[in-house]
C-alpha cells in the first residue's frame, strides 16, 4: 500500500439488512484506489475502536432506518476525546432532512442521501480526507 492511499472504514449496524448501497460504495471506493474496511457493528464504539486500530482517514456510516443520531453522537464524541478530529466522518442512506444540521454540528462533515452517486462520495473524500503523503514516517 502506498503511503498516501486513503483508508476508509465503512460501517453499518448488524441490525439492519439494507446494506446494498454501502456494499456497492465499498467496491467503488476500492476501485477508486482507496483501502476499504467494512464492518457490521453492534455498538457505535466498535466503529471508533476499529477506526483507531486500522488508522483510517475516513469513517462512513450507512443508516436507512433511524438510529443514526446516537451513532453520530457517540462516534464524534469518542473521536474528539481521542484527539482524532482529523478523521473525516460522513453518513449516508436514508437520513431525514431535519437531522442533517444537528449531525453537522456534532462533527459529521457530509450526509449523502438517496440518489447520491458513488462519484460524489469519492470526490468529497478526496477533497476532504486528511493528507497522508506528508505524514512523518
Amino acid at each position, binding site marked *: 500500500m502506498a503511503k498516501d492511499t486513503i483508508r476508509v472504514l465503512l460501517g*453499518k*449496524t*448488524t*441490525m*439492519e*439488512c439494507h*446494506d*446494498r448501497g454501502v*456494499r*456497492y460504495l465499498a*467496491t467503488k471506493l476500492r476501485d477508486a484506489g482507496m483501502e476499504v474496511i467494512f464492518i*457490521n457493528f*453492534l*455498538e457505535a464504539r466498535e466503529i471508533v475502536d476499529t477506526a483507531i486500530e486500522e488508522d483510517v482517514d475516513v469513517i462512513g456510516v450507512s443508516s436507512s*432506518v*433511524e*438510529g*443514526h*443520531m*446516537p*451513532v453520530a453522537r457517540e462516534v464524534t464524541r469518542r473521536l474528539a476525546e481521542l484527539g482524532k478530529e482529523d478523521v473525516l466522518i460522513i453518513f449516508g442512506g*436514508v437520513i*431525514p432532512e431535519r437531522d442533517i444540521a444537528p449531525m453537522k454540528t456534532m462533527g459529521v462533515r457530509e450526509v449523502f*442521501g*438517496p*440518489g447520491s*452517486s*458513488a*462519484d460524489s462520495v469519492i470526490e468529497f473524500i478526496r477533497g476532504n480526507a486528511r493528507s497522508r503523503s506528508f505524514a512523518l514516517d
Partner: protein
Amino acid sequence: MMGVDTTAVKSDAAAGEPPPERIPRQFNPEFLEATRELERQWQKSFAAIAAKFGVDPANYRLATDSGLPLKPTYFPHDVAGRSDDAAAPGTFPFTRGLYAAQYQFMPWANQPVIGYGLPEDTRKRMDYLQSQGMTGYFGSTFYNLVYDLVSHEGLDPDHPAAEGRVGQCGMAVYSVQDQARLFDGLPLDRINVVHISYYEVLPVLAHYLAYARRRGVPWSRLGGNSMSWYYQSAYVGMTCFPPKSGMVLAVELVNFCTSHMPRWNTVNIFGYGMEEAGATAVQEAAYSVAAGIDYARACVVSGLHPDQFLSRFGFQISQANDFFEEICKVRALRRLWARKCHELGARDPKSMHVRIHSHTSGAVLTAQQPLNNLIRTTLHTLGAALSGVQAMEVSSFDEALAIPTEHAHTMALRVQQIIQDESGIARVADPLGGSYYVEHLTSQIEQEAQKLLDEVEARGGFHRCHDFIRARIEESAARWRDEVDAGRRIVVGVNKHVSSEMQDIEIFKLNPEAERVAVERVRALRASRDKERWGRAMADLDRAAQRLRDGEYGVLMPAMVEAADADATTGELMGVLKKHLGWSSPY
C-alpha cells in the same frame, strides 16, 4: 424424534404425478413449417423498419433485466416441443398455478406489512387496515407483523446498541405481555398471524404460544407463519447464527410444528430479500429453490417424510420492474420447485406447491417524486396477480422515505383492491398462459435458473455457499447501479424526467415515547416476575439448547415456551440460542 403418521398424508395422484406424457407435443410439423415461413416474412418487414432507424437487425440486441436475450416477437415454433406448458392449472408442474380454480372463488389475500412503535401503535394500524377491507382467506384477517431491529438481533430494548432503534422498522414486542398488547380481544383461532422476524424466530413464536395458552387457545388451531430466514445471512449483513446453526434451528421448528401445529407455516423462502439485495429474477428463482431444498433435505435427515412438512413451506417473492420477466419468474419457479420436491420424494401435490406471498419491490421505489411509486407498485401488483400468487404486500409510496403513514398504507391496500375488484383480471386462471412470449420466457428463466441451482448444489447446497451467493448477488447489484448511473437504465425522476419541484408528502414520525416506554416495560417485567420459576425455566432451556446443538430435535421449542411463559424476554431467550448455536460457540 417425532412420530411419522403417514396415514395423515393425503395424496392426489393425478395432480401430483409428473410428467403428463399423455399430452402430445405442441403443434404438428406442417403447422410449424408454416409459422417458420411467417417468421421469415416478418423478419423482412422488421429489417425494413429497422433500416429506417439506422439499425442493423443483425446487431440488434434485446434483453430482460436479468440479461436473458429476447426476440422482438415470438411465434408458435418458439414454444413447440414442450408439453408441460399445456398442463391444466392445478396439475404438475404447476406452471399455470397451484389450483384448478385460481381466483374464481377466492382472490389473493391482502397482507400489508404492519409494525412500528409500541404494540399498541401497531394494533391501532392493524385495526385500521382491517376496517379498510384488508382480507385474508375465507373472510378471515391476516396480520403480517414485523418486529423491530432490536428484536431481529435478539436484544432487549435496554441494550446499549438498541438506542434509537426501538420500534423502528418494526414493533417493540419483547415478551408475552407485549403479545397481549397486540392481540387481546382478537380471536386467535380465526386470524392468521405472520411473525416477521429474522433470527429471533423461535423466541417470538414461544411468546405467541405462551400467550395463546394463557388465552386457552390450543396451538393446533393457530394459523400463521414463522419466517426461518436464517439463510439470509448469505446476502445481507445481519447474522446471528452460522449457516449450519440456522438450519438446525429451522429443522427444530419444523419438527415441533409437524407434531403440534399442523396449520402453522414453518419456513418462508425469502426470494424478495435476494432481489432487494440486488439479485436478478433468475438468481432469485434459483437461490430460492436452493435455500428451500437445502432446508427440506435437513428435515428429511431429521426423520421426517417430505409430505409431512413441505406443504408448510412458503415463499415470499419480489415483483419488480421487468413486467413480463417477473411474471415468468413466478411461473418458472413453480416448475423448478415442483420438480425438485418430487425428486426429494414428495408425492402430495401440496408438498410441491410454491405458495407465494408476493411483495412488490421496495428497492426500485424512489425518494425522488415519491407519488410516482404508486404507479410503479400498481404495475408490480398487476404482474403478481397475472402470475397467480396467493397473497400480496404492496409497498407504500413513501417506502424510500420512512415507515408508511396511514394514508400511504391505505393507498397501497387500495392498489390491491382496485385490481382485485375492478379490473376483471381475476376472472380467468393463468390469463397469460399460451402467450408465445410468456411461455418461451418462462422456459428460458427455468433453464437459466436450473444452471445456477446446479452450481450451488454441486458446491454442497445453499448453506455451504453463502460467500459464493453473496458475490453473485453483489455483482448484479453493482451492474444495476452502474447502469442507472450511466443512464443506460432509466429511472424516472432520478436519471430521466428529473424535476426540481418537490412533492410535499407527509413523513411518518414514530411515537417519541416508544423507546422510553419499551425500556421501562422490560425492566418492570424483570423486576416483577417470579424469579425462581424464571431461573428454573432458563436453566431447562439452556440444557435443551445444548441437546439441540448435539443433534437432538424436539426438546428445545417446548422448553422455550416454558421460559417465555415464565416471562423471559426476547433478549434472554436469544441469549441462550446465541450461547450454544451462535458464532462464538465451539459449534
